[in-house]
């Protein structure tokens, strides 16, 4: 009902393609994170989804409405936190939110109540009556977030929502957004460079590179995509022969760290048999101190997928169990 779809979405500036044949689906109730290098087209995409920028070609359906035809209807059910927001600096936070509440046609008593509630949720209650000119960077970001939520949106678009916020603030905002998602089923579409946050917070992740969506799926889907699913870290005591023995190992291993006491090496092999590994360790008489599987984190996936040389040296990218229609996108050239 309140999902987001883009179909062959495209934005060109002159001959430059900022967004290129973008097709994806975000299900209602999902938390979708769009990541990608600077200039990848994240902001451009979000603006087209919110109707402040018209696409050169393609179509977007937000909350069941086609933005080209029913942009006013869409605007009543979405909230958008733009990449950078200006403020009427002479107003205080409360007045600012009230102004927007009125623009959304929210009646006074309800607006006042919602505003108090919102200011509380974004942690600005104490500064509600101070002029916005005196707000700090993070406080302004919180106010902008409150403004994006003033109309009780069913779908929230957040372009780098926690930018400029302190660590506690980031956590608080994440928690608030999660609550919103759980309690009211609000669909959240965000872009961010805080990949650790994205990987814990979003259940669907899209990677945009040079205007193209090169991957889309859950974190595990993305791990499979880069064949980074199984990696094992082995830590052994550093003995004289250890390193030379390692070079003759039957596994595909790389030495990660060598200290006086220990040697860490990583085995990356999708079809590894743990028993084999343990047998080999026994046979070589290594003094094992640690053995654990490490999962590839989003940073590594991101760096691999957006590496300009990546696609030349790897198999085409496919995600098997992605719920989105663009399964099997190949990376851009």
């Amino acid at each position: 009902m309140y999902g987001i779809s883009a179909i062959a979405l495209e934005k060109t500036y002159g001959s430059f393609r900022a967004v290129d044949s973008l097709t994806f689906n975000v299900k209602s109730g999902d938390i979708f994170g769009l990541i990608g290098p600077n200039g990848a087209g994240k902001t451009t995409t979000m603006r087209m989804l919110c109707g402040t920028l018209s696409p050169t070609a393609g179509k977007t359906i937000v909350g069941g409405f086609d933005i080209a035809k029913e942009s006013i209807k869409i605007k009543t059910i979405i909230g958008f936190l733009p990449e950078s927001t200006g403020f009427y600096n002479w107003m205080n936070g409360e007045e600012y939110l009230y102004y927007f509440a009125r623009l959304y046609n929210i009646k006074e008593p309800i607006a006042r109540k919602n505003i108090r509630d919102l200011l509380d949720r974004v942690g600005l209650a104490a500064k509600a009556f101070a002029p916005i000119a005196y707000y700090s960077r993070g406080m302004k970001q919180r106010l902008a977030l409150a403004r994006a939520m003033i109309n009780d949106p069913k779908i929230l678009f957040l372009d780098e929502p926690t930018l400029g916020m302190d660590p506690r603030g980031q956590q608080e905002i994440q928690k608030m957004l999660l609550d919103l998602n759980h309690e009211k089923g609000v669909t959240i579409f965000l872009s961010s460079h805080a990949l650790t946050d994205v990987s814990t917070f979003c259940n669907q992740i899209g990677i945009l590179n040079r205007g193209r969506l090169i991957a889309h799926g859950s974190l595990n889907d993305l791990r499979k995509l880069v064949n980074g699913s199984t990696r094992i870290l082995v830590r052994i005591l550093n003995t004289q022969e250890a390193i030379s023995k390692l070079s003759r190992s039957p596994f595909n291993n790389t030495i990660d760290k060598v200290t006086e006491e220990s040697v860490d090496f990583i085995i990356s092999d999708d079809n590894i048999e743990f028993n084999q590994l343990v047998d080999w360790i026994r046979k070589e008489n290594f003094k094992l101190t640690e053995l654990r599987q490490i999962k590839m984190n989003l940073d590594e996936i991101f760096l691999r997928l957006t590496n300009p040389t990546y696609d030349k040296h790897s198999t085409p990218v496919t995600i098997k169990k992605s719920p989105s229609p663009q399964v099997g996108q190949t990376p851009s050239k």
Partner: protein
Amino acid sequence: MIIYRLEISGSIYSWRGAAWIITAASIFSLVAYLLLTDKELSLLDQGEMLFTFSEVIIVLGLVMSGINSSSSISTEIEAGTFECLLLTPIKHVQIAIQKMLSTVTIWIVLYLISIPYLIVLANGTNLAISAILYVGLYGTLLSIAISTISIALSWMLKTSKNSIMVALMIVLLLSAPSLFFATSLRKTDFGIMLENINPFSHTINSLDSVLVDNQQAVYEQFTHIWPVLVFTIICSIIFLTFTRKFEVKML
């Protein structure tokens, strides 16, 4: 009319916002004082005095309309507050119309302030009503024309520096021939043609004919009224066409 109200409250209710009212009133007082007391100037007949004063009102109104309307959009674009306005479920053209109306409202306040001066200057003649009505008519039409065209321009030019500059140049382009050019220059073929299409010239000529030559009936002024009206309509059409959709491209 939320945006309209914010705009108005910014330029009328607050002290700093209302500085222009005090300035305008000072200009009116100064000009009226000069007209009434200066030995040579006061030799002018009253119709001429009223005419000069009406010119001052109209020019002030035009300058104010140009600056106020072009800055009302472009300052929001520059401050980055415009994108949020565009996100609200209000048609873009509605935003533009509210901004335009707030400028016209300010013109009306300016005009209301000028009325007592007109009455005093017309004292003892039968010109007071005509002066008030014609200044009101032409001032309002030209204020609408300048505000609409200035907003359409700032919609495209986006920075306040550029849009205010262009708006002022348009005001100057319209008013310079009547205000500064010698009569001989205006009587050349080209000069006459320019005067025929220039709504400001029509306004000035009409006020001249009403206040100095005492041709007060509307039908006598119709040849001057309709070009101003047409100009206002053309500006409004341009305005409605350009402000239908705003693209955030350069924000």
